């Protein structure tokens, strides 16, 4: 028995994104859940499950979902957990919710991400020119790294990207093509932080380096805000205010070992489980929302799902296949590079909007089989969802 089509996403809530400071991380989470319930036409009392992916501002967040339950005034929950697989968490939350609903443990689950890594400008202090904005949020150093000047997640990812470019011949133009294609989508997404800013490959090359091989436009945004979706049974979802987005397939893949040796994500493993459950082949996928912490991650992910052979995604993107009007629309809201950074919620949110047919100017022509990927821990955790507006 597979859960295909038995569970659906019935509500979506997204707060204002980016340099917004009027709430705490808990406040953003509450607002996202309130918006998702309103979107679905449900009441707080309909919720009996709560899953939270705590962002950086939650600290260790060992009891994050309980904190959020109290803030939301929820009673009689039958499912609760804080989960963290980095960028793979959003997909994993949907999966845990779907399994719990299919098992009869609960009926209606809010899956939530919120964060507030950016400080208001007036609260930022710099000793000697070091960053205080988005670059500060992820600027930790591990072990001996600080002595060698290796700071931040960008620097660690850059090591894997450089090795990948060396092995597969991927060029700086290839990375730039991802940023440009996604910006074209963002220019049609009013909710995107870069909605009003066009981007050419020339602009990309002229943009400042953060850590080679990454220009600033290869790196995701850093956003304050919250995002939530409501997962429920297919029957209940059909009573929702909005068209249900059915979960067809789901899987995870966590390959272990050294990502710089592997040069691949957990997608091949996660895909196998999810596509078998959904009863689809790679060629059936009509639309992709792929986790894009970096432009580089999109190339790796396209290859790992089998849309291109290893090393060929750069040319695939550069040829325009993933851009508006292309054969395989990818990251149609602009992704984390150009719209907003809610970890794995960014691709999931856009998948729901597209599957419902609510994407307006940027609506992809075909939306029956939508692939959503989540990736975390430096190509080390992965979740796959296949969703559709059709029950089967």
């Amino acid at each position, binding site marked *: 028995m597979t859960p295909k089509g038995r569970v659906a996403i019935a509500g979506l809530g997204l707060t204002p994104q980016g340099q917004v400071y009027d709430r705490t991380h808990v406040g953003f989470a509450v607002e996202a859940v309130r918006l998702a319930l309103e979107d679905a036409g449900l009441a707080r009392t309909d919720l009996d499950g709560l899953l939270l992916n705590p962002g950086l501002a939650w600290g260790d967040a060992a009891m994050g979902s309980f904190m959020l339950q109290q803030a939301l005034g929820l009673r009689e929950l039958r499912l609760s957990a804080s989960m963290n697989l980095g960028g793979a968490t959003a997909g994993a939350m949907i999966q845990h919710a779907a399994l719990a609903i299919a098992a009869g443990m609960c009926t209606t689950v809010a899956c939530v991400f919120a964060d507030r890594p950016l400080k208001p400008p007036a609260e930022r202090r710099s000793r000697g020119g070091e960053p205080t904005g988005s670059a500060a949020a992820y600027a930790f150093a591990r072990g001996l790294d600080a*002595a060698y000047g290796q700071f931040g997640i960008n620097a660690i990812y850059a090591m894997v990207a450089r*090795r990948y470019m060396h092995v597969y011949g991927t060029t700086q133009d290839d990375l730039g093509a991802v940023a440009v294609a996604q910006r074209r989508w963002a220019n049609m997404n009013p909710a995107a932080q870069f909605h009003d800013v066009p981007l050419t490959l020339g602009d990309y090359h002229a943009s400042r380096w953060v850590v080679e091989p990454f220009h600033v436009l290869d790196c995701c945004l850093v956003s304050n805000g919250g995002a939530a979706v409501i997962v429920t049974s297919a029957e209940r979802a059909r009573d929702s205010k909005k068209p249900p987005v059915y979960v067809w397939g789901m899987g995870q893949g966590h390959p272990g070992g050294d990502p710089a040796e592997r040069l691949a994500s957990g997608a091949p493993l996660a895909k196998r489980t999810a596509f078998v459950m959904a009863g689809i082949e790679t060629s059936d996928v009509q639309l992709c929302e792929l986790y894009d912490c970096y432009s580089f991650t999109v190339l790796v992910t396209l290859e790992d799902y089998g849309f291109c052979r290893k090393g060929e995604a750069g040319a695939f993107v550069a040829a325009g296949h993933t851009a508006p009007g292309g054969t395989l629309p990818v990251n149609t809201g602009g992704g984390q590079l150009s719209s907003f950074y809610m970890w794995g919620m960014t691709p999931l949110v856009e998948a729901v909007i597209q599957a419902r047919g609510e994407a307006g100017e940027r609506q992809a022509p075909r939306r029956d089989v939508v692939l959503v990927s989540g990736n975390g821990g430096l190509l080390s955790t992965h979740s796959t969802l296949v969703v559709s507006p059709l029950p089967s």
Partner: protein
Amino acid sequence: MSETPIAKPVPEASPALAPFFAAARAGRLVVQRCAGCGALRFPPRELCSRCLGLEATWQDVSGRGEIFSYNVMHQVYHPGFAADVPYAVVIVKLEEGPKITSNLVGCPVDEIAVGMPVEVAFEQLSPEVTLPKFRRRRC
């Protein structure tokens, strides 16, 4: 007006790293060796992820290897590096297998390449801490 530049961070010679720094002071590069299965590893860890053995010793390595990957840091994350940007951080794959994150000295950043042969070169930061770095090796 000149200000005293802020120093780079000096790593703490923690108990786990004490043998590493003791060797570096003496001009030797060492990595951990699992007493159970013989696997070499760096940085040091409390157990071997290959055999789960808890016992380990430190073993000298050749100090020779090649650039496995590198990045070029343009963003200043610590004021001690403000005068250095852009500077490279490298991952050296040692001939014996383990990888070590370090810097390449005496090599302009635009000449660094994956696969470049390198050898260890020690840099004394303080009486307690000497840091292994690398330089190009002619072969």
